[in-house]
């Protein structure tokens, strides 16, 4: 065995004091996992490309009344709100489909810390996407409606609401992925379930009052449109409880107690 080889084997010198990998580091690792596979990379590139396209189209078409920062931003977050949840789903489910859970949970036995890191990484990705949307919207507004009165009107609370809109979608993806632990069903159901529920609750008169509180299609929409009223906030929270918190709770329970094979 050469000396070069020997250098790589355990030195058996007194081990340096070990520290537990912090949540920050785990989050960075999860962010890395989002982009180091083809699926993740192309998904995010498509989000960026679509966002750019939508901003350009919004800026070049329509009336002056549409060329407001508020409208630009509203349109620009739409691709991310639809596609980023898939990144969130895959961030969880790919560990199961690829059996990398064996590695991940051998390196971090406290599984709840891995789940936390995945949630934080998802929020970080949502924030990054939102900042890009905001930047593109600012540039587009400056380019086509710089002098138009009222074009720049956008209260800080509205900006926050739009981010919350994106963040809910993103965390919802992670939650569905965690609850189902399987890519295809999680992706399909995360689209089909809310839409079906939306249709059903609109068609059946008796369910209409329920739909007003639990239909994501209806309760999420005001977030990007206007400042929420108290009642709208309550409806939003109720929907989030059912569509995000509940699947997430089921998912965490499954992940923490399942046998990793």
């Amino acid at each position, binding site marked *: *065995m050469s000396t070069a*080889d*020997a250098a*790589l*084997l*355990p*030195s*058996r010198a007194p*081990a340096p004091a*070990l*520290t*537990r*990998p912090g949540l920050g*580091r*785990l989050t*960075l*690792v999860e962010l*890395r*996992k989002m982009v*180091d*596979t*083809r*699926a993740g990379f192309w998904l995010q590139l498509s989000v960026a490309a679509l966002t750019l396209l939508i901003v350009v189209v919004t800026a070049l078409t329509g009336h002056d009344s549409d060329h407001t920062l508020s409208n630009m931003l509203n349109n620009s977050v739409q691709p991310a709100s639809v596609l980023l949840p898939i990144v969130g789903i895959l961030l969880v489910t*790919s560990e199961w489909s*690829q*059996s*990398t*859970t*064996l*590695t991940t*949970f*051998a*390196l*971090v*036995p*406290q599984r709840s810390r891995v789940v936390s890191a995945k949630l934080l990484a998802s929020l970080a990705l949502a924030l990054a996407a939102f900042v890009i949307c905001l930047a593109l919207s600012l540039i587009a507004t400056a380019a086509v409606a710089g002098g138009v009165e009222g074009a720049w009107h956008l209260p800080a609370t509205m900006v926050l609401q739009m981010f919350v809109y994106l963040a809910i979608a993103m965390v919802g993806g992670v939650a569905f992925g965690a609850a189902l632990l399987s890519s295809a069903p999680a992706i399909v159901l995360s689209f089909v379930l809310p839409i079906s529920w939306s249709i059903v609750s609109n068609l059946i008169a008796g369910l209409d009052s329920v739909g007003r509180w639990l239909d994501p299609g209806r309760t999420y929409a005001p977030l990007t449109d206007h400042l929420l009223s108290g009642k709208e906030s309550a409806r939003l929270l109720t929907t989030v409880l059912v569509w995000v918190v509940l699947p997430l709770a089921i998912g965490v329970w499954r992940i923490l*107690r399942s*046998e*990793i*094979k």
Partner: protein
Amino acid sequence: MIEAEGLTKNYGGKAAVRDVGFRCEPGTVTGFLGPNGAGKSTTLRMICGLTPPTAGSSSVLGMPYARLTNPGRQVGVLLDASAQHAGRTGREALGVSAQLMGVDRARVPELLERVGLERSAAKKRVRQYSLGMRQRLGLAHALLGDPEVLILDEPANGLDPVGMRWMRGLLRDFADRGGTVLLSSHLLREVEATADQLVIIGNGRIVAQGTRDELLAGTGTIVRAATDDAALAKALRAADMDPRETADGLLVDAAPELVGQAALRGGVALRELRAAEGSGLEQLFFELTGDGDSAGGDVSAPTPTPALEATR
């Protein structure tokens, strides 16, 4: 140091692993042997905190695995060579873990080279890897954190003979430097050459364990006549010996010199006369492997041979 005590795992009322206990000391290689489905992988997963045991406990470096500060830097684990994201490159798979454990990223190319994955292979996605390449990547992954303990499930699977020899040398060296190695295998020959300790499991139960030398110690003599085995058997019976036919020749429960003298008295020329190293172990292992298909069922473990029982 690895300790397991009374590890038991039931699936739907059936015991996959029953009361498994053993100890792996620093500086030794322990071979965890058993046919497929005997409960090896389940036991290793329990030790690594991935499968909750129904009963019993285990510890690595003196504490339950889940309480290790930074497991990747303390224990190198390879439970399934295919458990890498198929869409990542080999280098990226190690890179992710290096970042997680806080290991200098310069170790990644070093280790890839060390396990024989050249630069071109490291850039390929794991999907394109052969099983042998995945094993090498898995071994690199296990060594990445410069651990004191290695836990490897069937690491030789898919390796070619050169690769196996290389791995044996690597594990031997790791142990000689004070590391603890626990590796599982379903092939006796594969671990015989590397392990100092053997733990043999069949149908979820430990059927024999001890040092390799104890388990392989003479359990008789193998003898073959130059031409006439029947005459040889007759000569041995005349000396009050009870020869049994095996694939290797006649197995006699007596020391080689006594067997030689008996053959001389019978006037039979010999072609082979040697101590039957580990043929008892092999016999036991054959019985276990024969039962391998029904593992997980209620088939009771074969009775260990007296020689093995004595060493437990």
